[in-house]
């Protein structure tokens, strides 16, 4: 359908930019992915991909760690729950994009601000989801562990944390969409490389032949990450798989 539509538009106006022919996309993509940029001497496509993956990867790692620590604190230690639970609920309600300017002002335009945006966007949700999971652990399990001599620390280490890993993976999978959204938003506004930056840069020239492959590539990256997380969950946490 794309091919037909593209062909019809190009037949009418050979300079049409909205639906470039597949051959044009392929040649542009080739120059982005395999040829060095004359100005920077870097292969733009891979430089962009690497920059974006680094940002989203570190943001996910930080969010996961933060989420786990907060959830265990909230779930296991009643005094922390009273303090943090309402706070976290409120923070989760702040629209992250609305405080993006604040982040840029406070943290500068470098990586920190972009990673912070993603973390602020997804960590509270991950933490709340995991805290709910801790709350779902049957009270009997906790009591049983105590009668087996578990201290609070041992309880966290041997009973609570191991049962949170699969849920963390689920939670990360669900957060992935928002993570990409925040990444691209941050890159669009202030960046010098990155997948989101490139898309918004070439938008000015209506360069659909660049935008379309980038969108496909981002989608592919997201799908592959999701698949990888799912595989980790099935293989590393066999006990958490429903019986078939």
């Amino acid at each position, binding site marked *: 359908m794309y091919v037909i539509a593209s062909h019809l538009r190009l037949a009418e106006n050979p300079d049409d930019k909205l639906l470039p022919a597949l051959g044009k996309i392929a040649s542009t993509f080739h120059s982005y992915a395999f040829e060095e940029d004359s100005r920077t001497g870097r292969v733009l496509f891979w430089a962009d991909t690497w920059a974006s993956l680094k940002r989203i990867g570190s943001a996910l790692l930080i969010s996961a760690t933060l989420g786990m620590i907060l959830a265990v604190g909230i779930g296991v230690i009643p005094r922390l729950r009273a303090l943090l639970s309402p706070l976290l609920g409120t923070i989760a309600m702040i629209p992250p994009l609305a405080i993006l300017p604040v982040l840029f002002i406070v943290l500068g335009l470098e990586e920190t601000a972009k990673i912070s945006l993603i973390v602020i966007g997804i960590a509270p949700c991950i933490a709340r989801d995991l805290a709910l999971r801790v709350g779902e652990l049957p009270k*009997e*399990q906790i009591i*049983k562990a105590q*009668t087996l001599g578990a201290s609070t620390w041992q309880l966290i280490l041997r009973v609570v944390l*191991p*049962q949170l890993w699969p849920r963390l993976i689920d939670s990360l999978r669900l957060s992935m969409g928002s993570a990409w959204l925040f990444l691209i938003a941050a890159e669009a506004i202030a960046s010098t490389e990155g997948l989101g930056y490139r898309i918004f840069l070439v938008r000015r020239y209506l360069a659909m032949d660049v935008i379309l492959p980038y969108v496909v590539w981002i989608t592919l990256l997201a799908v592959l990450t999701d698949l990888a997380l799912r595989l980790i969950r099935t293989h590393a946490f066999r006990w958490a798989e429903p019986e078939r």
Partner: protein
Amino acid sequence: MAAVTVRNVWKEYGAQVVLENVRLEIADHEFVTIVGASGCGKTTFLKMLLGMEQPTRGQILIDGVPIRPEPDPDRGVVFQRYSAFPHLTVIDNVMLGLELRSSKITGRLFGAARREARAAAMAMLESVGLAHAADRYPAQLSGGMQQRMSIAQAVIRKPKVLLLDEPFGALDPGVTADMHELILRLWEENRMTIFMVSHDIQESFQLGTRLLTFDKLRHDPQSPEAYGASVTYDMPLSRRRPRAAPSS
């Protein structure tokens, strides 16, 4: 040794009196079975013995020492369900108590210590007839097997007092008979004092050396919450085992 003294224990939730003035002297190595209508406070009583709940008034002592106000390894427990750790295999579930005792920081054992603990856990599993399922996860076990595992898990820490909260309530009758044999054998071998809450009167007579029934002594039709339950019958049961009947 684990003689249990319950000294004038009351449990109230606001105006609602659940238990009133429970007084008991339980000798070492007694098998106490507790029956009563639902809502009569027998589970509350067990929770207080366990340290999950505190008495409003009165005291509970083991060998003359007041119990700690939270669960500890002196008092093992088997619940009706949910007390297995789903992320651990059967053998790891049983080993957990040994690992928690010896390794305070990581809660795990390594090398020779681990092999030793594993061997002890395996012996325990053999004793409850679960050796063949050692590497399965609890979700893959039948109800009876899960309860065997829970019992093994509790007994391996050698608690002074073992508390059983309707442990066989959800099992098939055929399985229950095997479980009775198992629990009596472990009770003899480990010289524990056992408290078992049950809704099955026949089972309670069959297993116990002493049977308690909980019920309300007084009843106020205008405010049913005003009076709590207490021990209404306290029967020593003569048994086939060679020990003298306990004096009460």
